[in-house]
């Protein structure tokens, strides 16, 4: 508990630093919201008036502190473009991305774990070559291309799945899954490739350890040795990279989201950067920084479950 509290407190300066960096970087991009909102036809007079309406004529430090003050009071502010509360934009978008992230992760696990184990156990055989080939392909084939190919095949040629048309899971689970399966598999395949390499190499490393030889010499079956002894020990690095993967996916699915027209989180951030909607970008990045902190914390806690030798908290140096 104490450990948890300490970790969360440590996250506060990190997050504040992130907001300051985002805030200053956003203001460094040429083109302010007023210019972008008003477009080509705007007169300089209209731009000035718009800047004033949006509060952009105030000193940048004041703008930041006003925003921070709002955040501390649970108010993420309103979009500069259309005045929607940022919290509701984030809420709308986060559900889709969390679902996509989770689905991608499950697809990745379902493929990577068995394939990784098989290729480690059968190192140097055709099984290994096939799965390594798959991994190489998975990492080299751009997932946006794969996504487009999926659409052409499953939506246009075969007509099995819709090419787009995300609906929230709570509204219509069937339609939601139909729209989400292609993007999940398209990105999942790529992530599976990365993860599979990780499973394979850490398993191979463990397989050389003495306790594995001991296990074999006790007369245990290969299956038992790998699944009971080796896999558990090989899992720590896999868990670390899974954590990083999930954190990366939360904001990094923007291309998949674009191709499948999913109103996701990455798209929210990118679109808001294009429209110079500072307030939305700040709010969204703040929330995603929080999520990354939480994911990392969960990963750290999971280490102790997998490997009891790892201790968190006092003297553990985490």
């Amino acid at each position: 508990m104490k450990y948890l509290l300490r970790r969360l407190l440590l996250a506060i300066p990190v997050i504040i630093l992130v907001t300051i960096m985002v805030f200053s970087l956003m203001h460094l991009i040429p083109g302010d919201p007023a210019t972008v909102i008003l477009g080509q036809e705007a007169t300089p007079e209209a731009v000035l008036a718009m800047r004033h309406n949006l509060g952009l004529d105030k000193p940048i430090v004041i703008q930041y502190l006003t925003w921070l003050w709002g955040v501390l009071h649970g108010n993420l502010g309103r979009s500069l473009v259309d005045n929607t509360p940022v919290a509701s934009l984030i809420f709308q978008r986060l559900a889709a991305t969390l679902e996509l992230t989770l689905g991608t992760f499950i697809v990745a696990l379902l493929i990577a774990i068995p394939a990784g184990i098989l290729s480690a156990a059968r190192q140097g055989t055709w099984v290994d070559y096939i799965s390594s080939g798959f991994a190489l392909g998975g990492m080299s084939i751009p997932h946006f291309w794969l996504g487009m190919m999926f659409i052409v095949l499953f939506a246009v040629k075969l007509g099995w799945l819709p090419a787009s048309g995300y609906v929230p899971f709570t509204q219509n689970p069937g339609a939601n899954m139909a729209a989400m399966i292609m993007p999940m598999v398209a990105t999942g395949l790529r992530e599976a490739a990365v993860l599979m390499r990780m499973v394979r190499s850490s398993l191979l490393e463990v397989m050389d350890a003495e306790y594995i030889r001991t296990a074999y010499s006790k007369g245990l079956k290969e299956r038992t040795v790998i699944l009971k002894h080796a896999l558990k020990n090989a899992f720590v690095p896999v868990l670390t990279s899974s954590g990083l993967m999930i954190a990366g996916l939360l904001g990094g699915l923007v291309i998949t989201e674009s191709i499948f027209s999913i109103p996701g989180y990455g798209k929210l951030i990118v679109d808001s950067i294009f429209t110079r909607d500072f307030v939305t970008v700040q709010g969204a990045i703040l929330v995603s920084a929080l999520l990354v902190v939480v994911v990392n914390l969960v990963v750290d806690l999971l280490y102790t479950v997998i490997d009891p030798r790892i201790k968190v908290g006092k003297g553990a140096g985490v």
Partner: protein
Amino acid sequence: MFKKFKAPLAAAVIGLMLVATGCGTAASTTAAGSGNSSAPKDGGTLNVALSSDAPKLDPAFSSSVYDRYVFQSLFDKLVDIDKDGKIVPMLADKWDISPDGLTYTFHLHQGVKFTDGTDFNADAVKFNFERDMDKASPRKGELGEVKSVTVVDPNTVKVELKEPFSPFLSILTDRAGMMVSPTAAQKEGADFANNPVGTGPFKFQGRVKGSTITLVKNSNYWQKGLPHLDSVVFKIITDANVAATNLKSGQVDITDWRFPTKEIQNFQKDSNFTIVNKPGQGYVGFYVNVTKPPFDNKYARQAIDVLVDRDALVNLIKNGAATPAHSPFSAGNLAYGDSDKAPKPDLAKAKELLAKGGISNGFSFTFKTGTSPDNQRMAEMLQNMLKPAGITMNIEKLEFGTMLDQTTKGDFQASALGWSGRPDPDQNIYDDVLTNGSMNYGKYTNPQVDQLMKAARKEQDSAKRKAIYDQAMTILNDELPYIYFYHENNVVGFSKHVQGFNYVSDGLIRTVGMWKN
């Protein structure tokens, strides 16, 4: 944080619609619209692919063409343009123009209500004009000639102009003529864009930003028997190829004007689809900064003009769905004519011009352009077209907001900003070439052109107006403050289930009379 660094990559991949601002005209093929024989059927949902989200659903503060797509279903205007380009009654049944062209009296349709139940009347019209003339509204410039708006009686409004202004009615066919509910506008304030209320055939139901905008039927619509559809859903699909795929698979019924040109032939062969491929109203080309070297030298500009192979650009970038341009006026515009005839590429002449300008060894400059594949392809083609004359063109690719910022501030030598186009010639040229005009980013100035621009908007007679524009274009085509490349076509694709679509030259989709089989 690192998401930030992913933005440029994402921009490169998804930022296709950024040329949104530039479009144009051409003369091409295909059906005029569908409007088939079968009797209209009520019900159903029309799914429309939009190539960019509609940022601001408030006519007074909108600056995006994609807002205008949605507005056609939400808001009625005082007057509209029809498929022949004629100005026709909408919320105003008729109007009188005083002989001096200074007073417009609008007689409003009676018994019209906004979808919040309040009355549409003369007070509402006055309110809307005044709201559009707010200093932060992009409409202020369009309505710059309006002196006063007077309520004569509940169904009659008188608008006085400072000077005769012949584009006035044409301007009212777009956002400046759209009527929003004064009650809702006052109640919602800055939030109006999230709860827009008009008198249109459809009401706003909700939106998921970046994904969908849902409108539902206004069952008390003032035009009896309309609309036919139960709802209209705009799906934001930023990649034109993905939009076409969605059309094919049935998730989308109709695309906006950015149907991918390379798919035109494929879809035309398929009897399940109709492709409308018609001249648009805008143009693509580049601004040259006449205050900075090398383009402060007229001959440098003229050399570029005769080196650009416009036919090649049209064929390779737009797959033929565009026409070479030499003026802002496309086919169908009242000022369109010989001034739009573009020169053929002529290297010898370019060299001659460069010699005349004292730059026979050529020169180099930087061209600022967007990040879309079309932008990139065009930039590379231009680079190769200019090279034989010793002109080195460096390409600087910029994300749209950055390019807009730098261009509007005059921080460029050449910038690829185009124009989506408007029905009246004035709206396609006035502010671009007038001294200190709001879109005169290249800082061109010529008192004679200024005088002609002002005369043209005062002139009421179309033939005389055209003569004035011809005169102005003779000067402008010699001085070249903007180099026009082509008028892009509006290409709309729709499925055979879609009926009652009438193509209007602004390329927008008017859903009021449409239905689905």
